[in-house]
């Protein structure tokens, strides 16, 4: 079991992730700590005042698992529980969990202030890639 868990972690650690956002709201360049802070709901609004909307792949997808590991350093269930606690305590709005990359991209493109994590570069008409710690992926 531990080996399996370790395997999943390793697998998660191997996946390369990219942060994208709606053109409105999020800055194009961020630090990892700043990104984690946003994705953990610690920052509710962007500098321009736009409300932060977090869009993630479901935790049972490879991208979701990787996101949980790299951003939250938790398992998928714990991330959901984490967000459940935050959202029900009113401290933050829960992320939007998507089943597919295309759905995720569509939501980001349509939602000002939206920020998402995915595993490939996506250039949409209304999205942008955020450079984290000077890199396009992490």
């Amino acid at each position, binding site marked *: 079991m531990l080996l399996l868990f370790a395997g999943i972690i390793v697998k998660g650690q191997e996946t390369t992730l990219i942060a994208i956002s709606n053109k409105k709201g999020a800055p194009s360049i961020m630090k990892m700590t700043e990104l984690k802070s946003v994705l953990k709901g610690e920052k509710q609004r962007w500098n321009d005042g736009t409300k932060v909307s977090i869009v993630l792949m*479901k*935790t049972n997808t490879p991208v979701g698992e990787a996101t949980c590991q790299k951003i939250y350093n938790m398992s998928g*269930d714990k991330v*959901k*529980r984490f*967000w*459940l*606690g935050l*959202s*029900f*305590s*009113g401290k933050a709005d*829960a*992320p939007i*969990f998507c089943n597919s990359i295309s759905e995720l991209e569509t939501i980001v493109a349509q939602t000002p202030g939206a920020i998402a994590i995915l595993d490939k570069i996506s250039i949409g008409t209304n999205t942008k890639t955020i450079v984290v710690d000077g890199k396009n992926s992490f």
Partner: protein
Amino acid sequence: MRITLKTKIWLTVLTIVLMFSFFSLYYFPEQQEKYLLDSYNNEVQNLTNTISLGVKIALKDENFEGVQTAMSFVKDDPRLLFVNLVATDTIWNNDSSRYTLKDSVLRTFPDTLKNNKSHLKNATIKKRSEFTSDMMSGAIELAVTTENIEMGKKRIRETSLIVSSVVFIIGILIGFWLSRNISIPVLALRDAANKVGEGDLTQRVVNKSGDEIGELAIAFNRMVEDLARAREELRKANLNLESTNEALHATVANLKAAQEQLVQAEKMASLGQLTAGIAHEINNPINFVTANIQPLKDDMADIIKIIDHYEEIIKKKGLENEFSEIGKDKQGINVELTKKEINNLLKGIEDGAMRTSEIVKGLRNFSRLDQNVFRKANMNECLESTLTLLHSSYKNRIEVIKQYGDLPEIDCFPGQINQVFMNILSNAIQAIPAEGKIFIKTWHDQNNVKISIKDTGAGMTDEVRKKIFDPFFTTKDVGKGTGLGLSISFGIIQKHNGEIEVFSRPGDGTEFIIRIPIIQQSTN
């Protein structure tokens, strides 16, 4: 204890009403409230389960809005107090040998409410529905108020109270109605039956209802009519029977009276014959006495005269010595006293003979054998004869005051008339217990002789007076009177075409007035 029909009706109605009131005020509301509460509990539990299922599905889909939506499913429900999303965490001890479950509320709706005990009132139902997902184990807790249930219970009780009141009033009205339509007619029937039982057959019961009571009233009326008809027939039959009976009684009484009269007449005839015989036998010897007493007195007067003359000569001529022997005899005899004694003895003999002669005459008058032939007789003499016979029963006790008129002789049966006087005078003597008087008065008019016999005895009441001529009626002790004397006397006076009247009052004595025609039309 006697329980009347009215009481029974009221007890029945009240029992029904009270039973209904019990059911409507207590049992049914209790059952309805229990049913309502059960339904409410089930509904709340189902609601909780639904939310729980919605939350579970939303969590599985990582749809946090869905969780919110599921929890908001009941947000518009006015009964909602709060809905909690509870996370159940397993907390192990340090050596992982034991664990405890800790509930922590993740979400409460409405947001303003915390899962605070103060929200749980008495009128609160709290339901819990647990779920388990990959993410977490937890439960949905749903608390709703039961105020609407309480309101419903209150409405049920109010409705029950109103229904019970209405039923109670209806019950009272039914009681009155039953009482009026059952008890009152039955009581009327009872009263009518009682009066019928007392003999009033005019009783009828008015009841126009077509029920059994009405039929009973009709049957009762018919029965009373039949009874009245039967009684009328019975009365008529009874009257016939009574008249027949009276006739029979009268016949028997007449027969008995006739028999008694015959016996009495026979007795009187025998007595008359005996008396006549005795009178005849005594009359001859007494005639010798009465006829010879006067010559004897004359002879004795002559002898005494001669003796006195002898003594006068002896004294005048001084011959005492020659008649010394006579003088010696005279010394032992009181001559003067002897002469007086002789006169007295003769007088006594004469009085006794006269008295005996009168008695014999009375006996002869009384015992005349003249039942079938009217004879001339003087009522004064008849009265005297009767008084003579009764002399010993009233002498020295009763004074007889006679006021005889100058009466003509009348046509009569002297023996029977004597019998009448004997009966009346005997009763008069017996009516005077100690001393008293009897007044006898006779007079006459052109056609009738009248005799009044009045005593100063005890008298009699009207009731007795009306019965004294009835055969066998007597106020005397048993064995001392036959009750026939005055009845026979009445018959005798009637036989003489006369009248006999009686006047009496208690304490004022009694007076009989007899009227007898002087001349009888029929002298058979």
